[in-house]
């Protein structure tokens, strides 16, 4: 489902990846670890094609970085859910509209949107905050809104960039529990983190980024 073939990624004269190869299958639960600044976020950005490899190819779903057009990128992003460390909520609208936005972009009907948003908000335990503005939420709540938004289109892959990075242990546990539930229903989870305590709470495949490439930690 996800493949890196001989990927090279450079920013300026800085190598992030070089001759990097990787394969991730459907339904896997993957932690991506490595020091700060090593390229975890860059790895995820390669997956949602916010950046393209300097050399080699990244394949995800039916898309290939060597042949994808700008026009196709939004459609790729609808098939994967993305959760950012800094939440990236739309600050100008309430919780309901934030989650609904991901459905609006697909042209979904209003009734469908309402029922799906309500289902997802209850899934992440935020039914009572439907009309709250992002600024009035705690970090854990913001992250749960972001997760609801990422899941509302029933993605086959959920990408999360240090989703617990700014959260206290309790909030982190809640997030992990949600990911676990989602993963049991078949969605692959790929989570960049340097919070190793998560690995003990919910075991999964661990990929370490080192020397510009990927290594499975067993």
């Amino acid at each position, binding site marked *: 489902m996800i493949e890196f073939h001989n990927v090279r990624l450079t920013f300026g004269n800085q190598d992030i990846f070089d001759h990097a190869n990787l394969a991730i299958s459907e339904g896997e639960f993957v932690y991506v670890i490595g020091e700060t600044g090593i390229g975890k976020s860059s790895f995820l950005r390669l997956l949602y094609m916010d950046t393209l490899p300097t050399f080699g190819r990244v394949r995800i779903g039916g898309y290939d970085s060597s042949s994808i057009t700008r026009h196709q990128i939004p459609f790729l992003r*609808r098939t994967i859910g993305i959760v950012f460390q800094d939440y990236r*909520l739309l600050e100008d609208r309430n919780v309901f509209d934030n989650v609904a936005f*991901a459905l609006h972009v697909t042209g979904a009907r209003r009734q469908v949107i309402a029922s799906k948003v309500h289902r997802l908000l209850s899934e992440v335990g935020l039914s009572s905050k439907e009309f709250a503005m992002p600024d009035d939420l705690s970090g854990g709540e913001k992250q749960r809104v972001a997760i609801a938004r990422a899941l509302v289109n029933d993605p086959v892959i959920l990408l999360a960039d240090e989703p617990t990075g700014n959260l206290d242990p309790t909030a982190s546990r809640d997030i992990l529990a949600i990911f676990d539930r989602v993963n049991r229903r078949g969605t692959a989870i790929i989570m960049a983190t340097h919070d190793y305590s998560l690995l003990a709470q919910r075991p999964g495949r661990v990929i370490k980024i080192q020397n510009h490439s990927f290594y499975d930690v067993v």
Partner: protein
Amino acid sequence: MSVSYTLKESFAGFRRNRAASLITVFTVSISLLLLGVFAIITMNFAGFVEQIRSRVDLEVFLDTDINERQQEEMNDILTSIPGVDEVVFVSKEDAAKIFERDFGESFDDILEDNPLPQSFRLSIREGYTTSDSVAVIAGRVEKLQLVESVHYRKQLLELIDRRARAFTVATLFIGIMLALSAVILVANTIRLTIYAKRHIIRTMKLVGATPMFIRAPFLIEGVFHGMLGGIIASLLIEIVFSFFIQPLSEDLLVSIHVSWSFYALLVLGGCLLGLLGSLISIGRFLKEALVQPN
């Protein structure tokens, strides 16, 4: 893409950011006010020049006296010349009266006979009053039988023509500069408000929104702001003209008036300004850069 969602988003923008909206509307109003006043002055001056032109008549003097039947024939021929509007026959007696009016002396006092020739006075149709067109008409009339000579204020027309050309070029230039600076001014104002939303726009892209989906509400919002700006500019111009200029226009001997279609054009211009402004401003933020610092 849902139309109702896009419309709702467009108007939500107004509610979510009132200050920025007001600034945009204000900028459009000021730009259109400038353009509008300039256009009114230009148009009225052009109308004034046209009035002067239309007062230029051709005087066609005949070399022999003609009878009534010839006079009618001549009248028909003159009327059939393209560009000729009205044809009036001036008899010897009429000419004498005009002479008497203009010089305050009668022939009868000086001469036995009336030496003045018969003539026709031709007025020129609108659109044929440039010196070239009038020269063509005069040339055709001169070639007619019985015509001795044709007189009109050739130098005046030529002068007006030369000045009018310079005037047109100058106003066109100033008009284009004004319109251009209006677009730039409005685009810059809108760019500031869109810049404030750049994180939101980027998030929208990351969540799978197409550029068109993101752009549409901004464009509609821009048109709406532009329309409001156009309406405000129209109201200001109407107030200024009906309260201050029109009472003066009798003294100024020129009637300045602003038509409803002009206001409609101003509002339309506002819409266009808002549309262009948003279109120019948002492009940069929508581009899929593919490598962007976070």
